[in-house]
């Protein structure tokens, strides 16, 4: 495995790695909602402290964690400037027909900070939870939806397979793009027409490979008795331990504290 995606699972044995995926997922979800709903500085201070502590417990290298923020660089810029110029309030500077306001500057900064929290929280989840655990957790959490006829198990299976094969597909893309580079395609041409042309020699082989892989996988699964409609048992069952319970309670306490802080304003 020579490629690294931002947010990819990193096997380790930390407190966060050992946690039940259900606890991690629910906690991450609640914290993300709070990150967007919160307004007061105190809530953000609390949330940030909590995230930093969790990050330390996760044993994830801080650089790798911060590097995931790169993925939202452009989105962040866009949101910041959007807020900067469109928020009415006390004017600071005028640029042409746009005015930058004090409020705009503040809400813009807050917006970026929320986005960063969001990415870091989700990165902490995916760094410490393997794709298989993620899918398993999702399957259990969404089980109630199976009651109204949604194919929850099948969806979890599809998700597991997609996550499992993403790195393999990336390696394939890497290999084929190199192979075509040797044959003289210019992938980094500034001419947009040439750049578009360079996609065909990439996409065709990648699709061929993906379909072949899918077919092989389907055969292998069927050969081992997989039937989409039948109930499967699992080798690894999820059990809530005392640590899981404590972690859940801490996350709950932090969430309630933030809600309380928000209420008190």
């Amino acid at each position, binding site marked *: *495995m*020579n*490629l*690294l995606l931002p947010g990819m699972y*990193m096997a*380790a044995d930390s407190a966060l790695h050992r946690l039940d995926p259900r606890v991690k997922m629910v906690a991450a979800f609640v914290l993300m909602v709070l990150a967007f709903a919160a307004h007061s500085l105190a809530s953000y201070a609390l949330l940030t402290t909590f995230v930093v502590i969790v990050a330390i417990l996760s044993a994830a*290298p801080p*650089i*790798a964690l911060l590097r995931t923020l790169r993925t939202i660089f452009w989105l962040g810029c866009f949101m910041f400037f959007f807020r900067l110029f469109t928020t009415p309030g006390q004017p600071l500077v005028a640029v042409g027909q746009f005015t930058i306001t004090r409020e705009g500057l503040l809400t813009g900064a807050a917006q970026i900070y929320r986005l960063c929290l969001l990415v870091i929280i989700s990165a902490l989840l995916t760094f410490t939870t393997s794709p298989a655990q993620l899918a398993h957790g999702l399957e259990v959490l969404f089980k109630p939806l199976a009651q109204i006829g949604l194919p929850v198990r099948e969806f979890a299976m599809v998700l597991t397979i997609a996550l499992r094969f993403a790195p393999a597909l990336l390696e*394939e893309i890497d*290999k*084929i793009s*190199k*192979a*075509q*580079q*040797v*044959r*003289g*395609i*210019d992938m980094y041409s500034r001419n947009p027409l040439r750049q578009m042309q360079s996609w*065909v*020699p990439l*996409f*065709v*082989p990648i699709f*061929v*490979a993906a379909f072949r892989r899918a077919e092989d996988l389907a055969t292998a699964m069927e050969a081992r008795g997989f039937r989409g409609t039948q109930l499967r048992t699992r080798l690894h069952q999820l059990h809530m331990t005392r640590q899981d319970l404590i972690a859940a309670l801490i996350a709950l306490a932090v969430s309630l504290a933030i809600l309380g802080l928000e209420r008190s304003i």
Partner: protein
Amino acid sequence: MLIQVENLCHIYVPGSPLARVALHEVSLQVGSGERVGIVGRTGSGKSTLVQHIAGLLTPSEGQVLIDGVAVHERTTAARAARRRVGLAFQYPEDQIFEQTVFREVAFGPRNMGLNKAEIAERVRWALEMVRLDPVMESRSPFTLSGGEMRRVALASILAMRPEVLILDEPTAGLDPRGRRELLARVRAWQVETGATLVLVSHNLDELARVVERVIVLDRGQVVADGPTRQVLSDSALLSAAGLDVPQSVTLLRTLREAGWDVRTDRLLPEEAVEEIVHAYAGHATALGALQTVEAM
């Protein structure tokens, strides 16, 4: 045409827990018209090294020079240098995408900006080189057999007339006959054009037939570099590097330990046979030795 690898280091995903040193201070030179084999177990850095020679990776440290030009740079000179190197990855048929064999082979020459007549001329020549029937030109490459697809992929590289041809495990997944034929074609091509050939493999029996010099990589470092006969008959070295010693060498070594007066640096089966016949004729206790062979 001189390839100089200078103090080359490569680290995959640096600065993360997954960081892995693929090459560590590799230095070597390959001269014009040489036939070189690069061997090593899985993960020894062979593929990384040849990708560096083709200018596809940026070194963590050190550099690869082709006639003095650093190939990984983004200059016009470096681009021109990269053009002189042809690289076929493992399972090169995976790169096929065109509707016809002709267009597939013509893809490289077309990217080089050649005119139509020249492209057609090169396609004919390349298909001839890999012994594919010209009637196949108009067929879809996806309808061909695995071995034929491999040859189309190889032709598509040959058509660019590289001065250096690098083949990464070219015979992987082929049957014994397909392997022999492919290597015979590659060798014939090398003799005809006088180009430099770099063959990556871990099948030493196969390599012994084609290359005149072997470089052994282990854990990202060069552990041996010398004439094929010398390197491939050094069973201690090869075993330490995690490689299978050529069968002929193993046989001759066993015979030698059993008291036969044979040389152990005969790499090809026919050479080994000759050596054994020779020794058998002159050996006093030939009968005893024969029993040894039968017992094996």
